[in-house]
């Protein structure tokens, strides 16, 4: 089996799992409890907070709020910031290629009377900074641009975007789910006000996310309850997943440079190999892209059948932006936003690497891709 879908889920790092396991088995108390077992759980959460803060160079651990997932963090960031700052204005801007967990809360706000604008991207998926600058109004409160796109791998010019956003006194929210642990992130240097992180995308267990909220950034809760996490995300903390996320963040900070150099080398060879196929094209930016990420489109064949063929005959798992794997039957909004025609967007394949991949995968995947494309084209009427 060759697993090439790390942008969708990363297998939990055995070290993070071993570290976190004790908070299920032995130190299982509620961190809000005042007896020793509860205090120990509380300590695990605080230790994780410090580790996550360190990964993104946050000012203090107190800037990190734990949530249940990146989706929850994105909702808290977009809704919570727009609602808390509505006295300034009811205008928000998001890039056209954001994840649905940013787009949908933004659309929801639009239904509630907020003015929503979409920042276009160029053919590589890079946000249009001129458009951003020209469309930022004094009423704009929050702008959301992800660090890197999980479908085409493009890394955005975050520092430049932050400078523009701050010029108009707005906040910049950055979804770093795909980027964290793969490229260095420094929220202070980058000028990021809110940053979304996902535990399982770092190699922790599922069930934990985090939102960095910079000093002085005003956010209101979107889920009132018992007041955990400074009242911003109520609910008993998932200590196991949080501790695992913290350990995964620590490992990522320590090993990212070497591991990503290794994965990038494999990725580059993979791209070279796949692009020998006739009428195959790289999508996303050729240089400004995540080191573990390759995405392609193939003319005259459809993405889901490529995915199915690779899985069934070769045991290779990839992703696709094909409409046929979504519920809407619309092709990926990301591929349409970078200017692909509908018929082009249907033939997309996304390969995202992780620790389990090695150079030995390259010829295997190359051969499998060639055979797959040849087989499907032989039965295509196009």
């Amino acid at each position, binding site marked *: 089996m060759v697993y090439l879908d790390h942008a969708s889920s990363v297998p939990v790092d055995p070290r993070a799992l071993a570290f976190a396991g004790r908070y299920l088995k032995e130190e299982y108390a509620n961190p809000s409890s005042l007896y020793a077992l509860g205090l120990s759980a509380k300590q695990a959460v605080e230790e994780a907070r410090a580790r996550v803060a360190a990964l993104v160079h946050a000012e203090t651990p107190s800037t990190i709020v734990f949530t249940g997932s990146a989706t929850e963090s994105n909702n808290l960031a977009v809704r919570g910031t727009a609602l808390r700052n509505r006295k300034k204005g009811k205008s928000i801007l998001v890039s056209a290629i954001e994840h649905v967990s940013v787009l949908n809360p933004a659309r929801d706000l639009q239904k509630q009377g907020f003015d929503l604008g979409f920042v276009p991207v160029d053919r590589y998926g890079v946000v249009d900074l001129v458009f951003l600058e020209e469309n930022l109004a004094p009423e704009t409160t929050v702008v959301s641009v992800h660090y890197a796109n999980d479908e085409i791998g493009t890394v955005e010019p975050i520092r430049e975007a932050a400078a523009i956003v701050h010029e108009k006194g707005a906040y910049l929210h950055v979804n770093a789910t795909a980027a964290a642990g793969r490229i260095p992130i420094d929220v202070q240097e980058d000028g990021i006000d809110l940053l979304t992180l996902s535990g399982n995308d770092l190699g922790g267990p599922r069930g934990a996310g985090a939102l960095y909220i910079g000093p002085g950034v005003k956010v209101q809760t979107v889920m009132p309850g018992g007041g955990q996490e400074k009242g911003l995300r109520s609910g008993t903390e998932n200590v196991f997943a949080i501790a695992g996320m913290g350990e995964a963040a620590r490992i990522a900070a320590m090993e990212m440079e070497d591991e990503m150099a290794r994965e990038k080398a494999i990725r580059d060879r993979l791209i070279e190999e796949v692009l020998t196929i006739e009428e195959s094209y790289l999508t996303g930016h050729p240089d400004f892209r995540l080191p573990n990420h390759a995405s392609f489109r193939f003319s005259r064949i459809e993405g889901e059948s490529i995915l*199915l063929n690779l899985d069934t005959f070769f045991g290779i798992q990839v992703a696709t932006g094909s409409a*046929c794997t979504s519920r809407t039957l619309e092709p990926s909004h990301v591929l349409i936003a970078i200017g692909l025609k509908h018929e082009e967007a249907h033939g997309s394949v996304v390969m995202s690497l992780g620790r389990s991949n090695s150079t030995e995968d390259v010829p295997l995947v190359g051969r499998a891709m060639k055979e797959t494309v040849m087989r499907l084209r032989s039965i295509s009427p196009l």
Partner: protein
Amino acid sequence: MEDRPQIGYSKKVMEHFMNPRNVGDVENADGIGTVGNPVCGDLMQVSIRVENDVITEIKFKTFGCGSAIATASMVTEMAKGKHIDEALKITRQDVADELEGLPPVKMHCSNLAADALHEAIKDYRAKREGKKEAIEEPAR
């Protein structure tokens, strides 16, 4: 193939995806039906040879997802050897049923195979009528 779920497809869909029957083009076909659109991600083409109003040879080509390939393969199996009047009665639902079901999201777009078959039969009939007219015309 390992016995595990695949995008909610039945074993029969997967079997037809892996070993599609009757792939290609019937040479000098008596009727050709093409439906769908690459813009929508699905394009089906069915070609038939007809003798005494019975489909004796049928082939398909498909641009589309796994279930598009499977439905096209299945419809060729269902129509082969049938009288064209009977073949015209094959519905999208019949094809889906024969494949032991399709995921609901796939019913609309990828299950165009029956339509392609119907178009091929209509094309055959139109050509036959055309031939008749061509023969009859000089006598007028």
